[in-house]
C-alpha cells in the first residue's frame, strides 16, 4: 500500500492565494486532486518540472490551486496546448486534467489524435456524467435514460466508454478508477504518470449538484456508495459470474503496452533529416 502523505499535500497547493475553491460540497474533484498530488510526491517529481494543464469546466479549475506550472486553456483544447508544451520542453512532466465533456465532446478530436501520437504525457478524464459547471447538460458519457437539464425525457443517445475509446485510439496505458477507491486511485495515477507514452485515466467522480439532483441522488454519500457498489476491479470480475457482472463498471488497468514514444521517434527523424540534407548538399 502507498504511504499516506497528508501533511505534505499542502505544500503542493497555492493555499494562501486561491482558496476557498469553487467546487460544491460533495464534489469528487478535490479528492482526485489529492490523489494527483500524492502520486507526484511518490514519484519525487519536482514542482518546477511539472505542468498541469486543463480545459474548461469544473474539473478544469483544478490547476489554479496547484503549485506547479499551471495552464488553464480553452474548452476541449488542453491536450493540444500540452502537446506544444511537451514539444518545446520534453523534460517537463505534463499532466492534463479534463472533464468528460471537455475531453470527449469538444475535445474529442484532440484526445484521439493525442493518443495516436503517443507523446509521453498523462491525461486524466474526470467523468461525472454531465457538464457540471454549465448546469448539468448531457455529455458524451451520460448513461442512457439519465435525466439532465437537456435530456428532460431521459438520455436518448448511447454513450462513450472512455477506456475503450482510448485503447482503440492507441493510448499506451488506459485505466479507470473512482474517487471512492482513493488509495487505488493513487496507485493508478502513479503508474500512469511514470508510464513512458500517452497514458489516460478515467476517474468516476460524483457531481451531486448537477447530475445527482436530476437523478434522485442529490446526497453525495449516496453517490459515493454507488461508486462502491456499482464497480468491480478487473481482477474481481474474472472470478464473477456473467449475470453478477451485469450493470457493473470495471476498475483497474485495461491496457499497458510499450510502443515507441513520439519524442524518441522525433529524435530519430531529426537524425534522418540531418543525414538526408547532408547527402543533398
Amino acid at each position, binding site marked *: 500500500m502507498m504511504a499516506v502523505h497528508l501533511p505534505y499535500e499542502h505544500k503542493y497547493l497555492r493555499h494562501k492565494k486561491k482558496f476557498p475553491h469553487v467546487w460544491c460540497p460533495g464534489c469528487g474533484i478535490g479528492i482526485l486532486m489529492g490523489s494527483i498530488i500524492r502520486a507526484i510526491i511518490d514519484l519525487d517529481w519536482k514542482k518546477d518540472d511539472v505542468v498541469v494543464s486543463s480545459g474548461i469546466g469544473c474539473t478544469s479549475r483544478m490547476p489554479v490551486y496547484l503549485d506547479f506550472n499551471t495552464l488553464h486553456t480553452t474548452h476541449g483544447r488542453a491536450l493540444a496546448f500540452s502537446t*506544444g508544451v511537451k514539444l*518545446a520542453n520534453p523534460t517537463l512532466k505534463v499532466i492534463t486534467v479534463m472533464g468528460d465533456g471537455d475531453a470527449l465532446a469538444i475535445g474529442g478530436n484532440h484526445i484521439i489524435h493525442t493518443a495516436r501520437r503517443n507523446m509521453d504525457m498523462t491525461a486524466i478524464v474526470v467523468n461525472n456524467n454531465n457538464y457540471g459547471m454549465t448546469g448539468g447538460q448531457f455529455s458524451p458519457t451520460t448513461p442512457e435514460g439519465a435525466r439532465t437539464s437537456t435530456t428532460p425525457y431521459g438520455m436518448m443517445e448511447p454513450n462513450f466508454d472512455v477506456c475503450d475509446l482510448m485503447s482503440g485510439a492507441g493510448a499506451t496505458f488506459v485505466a479507470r478508477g473512482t474517487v471512492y477507491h482513493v488509495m487505488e486511485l493513487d496507485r493508478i495515477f502513479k503508474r500512469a504518470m511514470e508510464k513512458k507514452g500517452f497514458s489516460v485515466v478515467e476517474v468516476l467522480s460524483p457531481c451531486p449538484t448537477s447530475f445527482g439532483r436530476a437523478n434522485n441522488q442529490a446526497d453525495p454519500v449516496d453517490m459515493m456508495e454507488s461508486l462502491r457498489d456499482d464497480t468491480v476491479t478487473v481482477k474481481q470480475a474474472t472470478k464473477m459470474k456473467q449475470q453478477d457482472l451485469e450493470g457493473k463498471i470495471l476498475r483497474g488497468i485495461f491496457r499497458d503496452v510499450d510502443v515507441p514514444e513520439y519524442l524518441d521517434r522525433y529524435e530519430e527523424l531529426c537524425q534522418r533529416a540531418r543525414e538526408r540534407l547532408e547527402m543533398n548538399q
Partner: protein
Amino acid sequence: MIVPWGEEELVQGNEAIAMGAIASEIDLFAGYPITPSSEIAEILSRYLPALGKKWIQMEDEIASISAIIGGSLAGAKAMTATSGPGFSLMQEGLGYACMTEVPIVIVNVMRAGPSTGLPTQAAQGDVMQARWGTHGDHPVIAMVPCSVRECFDLTVRAFNLAECFRTPVLLLADEIVGHMRERIAFPGEDEVEIKCQPEPDVPIEWYEHYHPTASNVSPMARFGTGYRFHVTGLTHDAHGFPTRKVEEVMAKLGRLKHKITRRLDELEDVRLHGLEDSKVVIFAYGSVYRSALAAQQILAEEGMKVGVFRPVTIWPFPDVTAKKYLDDKEVVIVPELNQGQIIHEVERVTLDAVRIVPVQRIDGYQITPEQIVEQIGEVV
C-alpha cells in the same frame, strides 16, 4: 546553411516566409494543411528536424494554434500558417494568446471566400477578421507584405514584435504574394536583428507574470525555469490568477490595450510616394500596392501626379499619419481585393471633404493598374 544569407536567389513568397521563420530562430511550427499556405509547412517540415527544432502537423487549426501557445509558454519561438477557413478556426486561440499575452506568429495567406470560396486565388477578405475576429475586444498587430523579400523581412519583424509586445502577431499575405516567385537579395546574417522577450531577473517569490510596467509589457518567465505561474483565459490579476475585482479587471484590460496603443510609433510602418504635390492618392496595401505603383507610373507618363499611401502595418491602423497626409486631398482611391474593408478605416480617419472612392475585386484576380487608372479617370 538553409537561409541563403547575403545571396541572391529566386524564391517563392511562402518559401521566404519559411526562411524568415528559420532566420528568426523558430523552435516550433505546428500547422494543418491548407491552400495556399501549405508550402510554408512543407518547407519547414524539411528543415526544422535537421536543425533539431520541432515541427508537427496537428489534427486541425484549433489544435495548431493551441500547440504553439503551449510551446511558447514552455520557451519556444513558435509559428503557425494557414488561410481563411483555418484562420477562422484559430480565432479562439488568437483571443486566448492575446488575453494571456503569449508571443506567437500566425501567417494567413489569404484566399478568396467566403467559406471554401476560391481556394487557389487571392483575396484580402480577412483584414477585418484579423482585427475583430475574436470574441471580446483587444488590439492586434498585423502586417501585410507586398513582395517576396517582404515576406522574409516581415516574418522576422513579426517574431520580433511578438516577443517585444508579448502578443500574437499576424502576417496577412495573400495567395499572389505567397505563390509569386521573385529573385531577391537576402540580407547578411549580421544585418538581421533577432529580439527576445527578456527573462525575469527578480527573485522567484517576487515574480508576477503580468507585472505592471511603464511599457505595459513585463519580462516573461517560461514553464520549467523555476518561476511557477498560472495562465488562464479568465480575466486575471498581475499573478495570473482569476479575478472579478473591478480594479484588477480594468488594470488587465487597460494594459492589454495600452501596450499597443501607447507604442504606435514602434509599430507604424508606411510607404509614402509622391504625396506632397498630388490631389489624388491611391491607398493600397499588400499585393494591390504593386498595381497602385504601376498605376501611379502610367498616370505620371500621362502627366498626372498621383500619390500612393501604403500601410505595411495594417493593424493598428496608422490613424494619425493617414489623416496627416490625406486630409488635404480631393480624392483617395482605395483598391482592395474585397467588398470594402480598409476603406472604412480610411473614411473614419479623414475629413468628410475628402472623396473616398473604392476599386474592388472579389473574383480571385488581381486589381490591374489599368482598373485603378480608369477609376481615377472617371472621378477626376
